[in-house]
């Protein structure tokens, strides 16, 4: 957990803060009165004694006003800051020099400073206005991702729309992107990333994938065929509260942020909260555990939102849940070693997908059922999906195998996304060609 700085007394406003405050009021004045401060300077004068101080006070009294004090003459030890209009600079400097008043130029050109400050203020309020300047090779905050979603949907409104499927425990929107070429209730493919908030590579991969879909539609025959017949749904930030927490306080937070009366540890493992073998081996009833399954199946709003959406839709044919790390592609069950009825088909499909992935950058993935490949885990997403009738249910564990783990360097985002895409495409293509 990143430490926060130790407590102590709060320092007063620094000179820079005070200056900023004055600059703001200047901007306001400028905006209202259309004033222009080009060439105006702010001088800082140090008066040695009372005599020099009174000389400065004389300046203050001049009519018409030649200087404007930002920090007026008070005591000899304190600096005096004055704004001098461009037209008066020569005279004022001559006055100061002739009386032996030492000064320095604090601000060489106020207008330049005002312009810079105004730009900075506007920038801090305004998030990126378009997705073309969004960096796909960096990790982003929740606000940046949600802003990107809005831009993305606007730019590709012919095939992309945004759906809010619910709210998180801390009341954040839970958003899903829908990729569709029309029709009503086409058979659909579900992809979720970020169900465990510390797995940052998954959100980043999801975003790149969304962009890849719109870029390749119409160009890649396989993808175009898929989208003509099917819809794709991508939930990029499946655990928004946890994700915000990984940015603000604890980079390695996994669970959601739900709180229950009398329980002192926070959060439920969203990938143990599904109604399939709930509470079994590979999940934990200790609320302080990272694999705490929660009080009951679907007790968590983040899980309930997905269950309700998929159930109401009624026509999902594939579900892919993306995690990190370990480099694995797996299918149900997690809750037991019992093979699913179409395990041979899933084995072959996983093998093909992993080969397609490998061809991109030579990265090797293990594959198999979750319980035999990774570990026994109960109440997981893909087990629920499979039990709900979704035959093609897969779980990814993306890069790497432990060298960086959750803290995968951003330089690996795009290579990871590129190779993962080939595996996703393989699975989607198979789903398209095997309707049921």
């Amino acid at each position, binding site marked *: 957990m990143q430490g926060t700085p130790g407590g102590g007394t709060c320092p007063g406003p620094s000179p820079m803060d005070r200056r900023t405050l004055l600059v703001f009021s200047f901007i306001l004045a400028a905006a209202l009165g259309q004033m222009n401060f080009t060439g105006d300077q702010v001088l800082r004068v140090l008066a040695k004694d009372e005599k020099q101080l009174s000389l400065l006070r004389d300046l203050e009294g001049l009519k018409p006003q030649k200087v404007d004090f930002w920090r007026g003459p008070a005591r000899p030890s304190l600096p005096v800051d004055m704004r001098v209009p461009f037209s008066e600079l020569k005279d004022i400097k001559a006055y100061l020099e002739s009386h032996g008043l030492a000064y320095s130029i604090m601000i060489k050109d106020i207008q330049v400073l005002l312009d810079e400050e105004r730009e900075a203020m506007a920038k801090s309020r305004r998030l990126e206005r378009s997705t073309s300047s969004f960096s796909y090779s960096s990790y982003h905050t929740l606000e940046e991702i949600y802003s990107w979603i809005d831009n993305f949907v606007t730019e590709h409104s012919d095939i992309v729309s945004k759906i809010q499927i619910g709210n998180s425990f801390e009341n954040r929107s839970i958003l899903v992107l829908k990729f569709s070429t029309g029709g009503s209730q086409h058979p659909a493919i579900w992809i979720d990333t970020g169900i465990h908030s510390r797995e940052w590579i998954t959100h980043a991969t999801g975003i790149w994938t969304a962009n890849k879909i719109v870029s390749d539609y119409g160009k890649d025959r396989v993808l175009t065929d898929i989208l003509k017949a099917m819809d794709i749904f991508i939930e990029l930030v499946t655990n928004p509260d946890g994700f915000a927490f990984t940015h603000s306080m604890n980079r390695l937070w996994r669970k959601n942020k739900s709180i229950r009366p009398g329980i*002192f540890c926070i959060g439920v493992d969203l990938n143990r909260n599904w109604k399939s073998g709930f509470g079994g081996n590979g999940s934990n009833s200790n609320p*302080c555990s990272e694999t705490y399954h929660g009080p009951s199946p679907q007790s968590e709003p983040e899980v309930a939102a997905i269950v309700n959406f998929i159930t109401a839709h009624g026509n999902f044919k594939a579900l892919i849940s993306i995690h990190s790390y370990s480099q694995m592609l797996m299918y149900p069950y997690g809750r037991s*070693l019992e093979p699913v009825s179409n395990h041979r088909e899933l084995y072959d499909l996983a093998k093909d997908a992993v*080969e397609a992935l490998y061809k991109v950058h030579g990265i090797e993935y293990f*594959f198999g059922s979750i319980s035999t490949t990774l570990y026994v885990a109960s109440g997981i997403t893909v087990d629920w999906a499979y039990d709900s009738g979704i035959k093609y249910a897969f779980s990814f564990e993306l890069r790497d195998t432990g060298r960086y783990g959750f803290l995968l360097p951003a330089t690996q985002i795009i290579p990871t996304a590129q190779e993962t895409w080939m595996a996703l495409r393989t699975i989607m293509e198979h789903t398209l060609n095997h309707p049921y």
Partner: protein
Amino acid sequence: MQPRRQPPPAPRSGPGNPRPTAPLLALLLLLAPVVAPAGSRGADDPGQLQDAEVPRRLLQQAARAALHFFNFRAGSPSALRVLAEVQEGRAWINPKEGCKVDVVFSTERYKPEEGEGHLGKCSARVFFKNQKPRPAINVTCTRLIEKKKRQQEDYLLYKQMKQLKNPLETVSIPDNHGHIDPSLRPIWDLAFLGSSYVMWEMTTQVSHYYLAQLTSVRQWKTNDDTIDFDYTVLLHELSTQEIIPCRIHLVWYPGKPLKVKYHCQELQTPEEASGTEEGSAVPTELSNF
């Protein structure tokens, strides 16, 4: 990311040999140290499993434990290795004593180097004992890096550590985006070396660990030229997904055996939790240093 080595002709396939007996054996092995296949075996005979029957996972656990021990014993932050591939192995299970594994595996350098695809090879005998917490290990490896080069790199790292001006206190290495500043790399490597000792002691047939992040560092002045530092690491245990904060105290000098003391935080139970938000990821103050 560079491919780790020359690609084999086909990607590795999982343990998903769709033989019905294999998963069943895996179940038996992992959930209870039961003596293996039917046959005429006396009560004290350790059951021996043939190659095809030994779950990949058990061999991997053994290889990991062996490698942590190897890294610790080598005492060289420049010569750290990571597991590349498990190649073969055998296991004996004695329900009274524990589980003994012979395993052969390949390794590569922890430090990613340009153009290097060299693989070292190791063979190890690992004994996961029921009574004792830490696995007993015999391991030998082929040489991966020339002795002189290793000594030079160790010495360079040593000098870099000695030249660190400020005690760094709270840090995040890597940072949240996975980046390690080159100037902080020596600290990381040394921390990884010290953590190897901890991870060796804690690895079992089921639990295995990775070093996730370094969250505090404090270097102490010494009067005997050794590197002496306290640090806090976050270890990630994969089977439970827990993040375990450990305080580690390390004393090192190039070429000398490494000295490590540590204390890792236990998982909180609901009764112990004090209402802090961070749950099990809060490091505690180390009381015995």
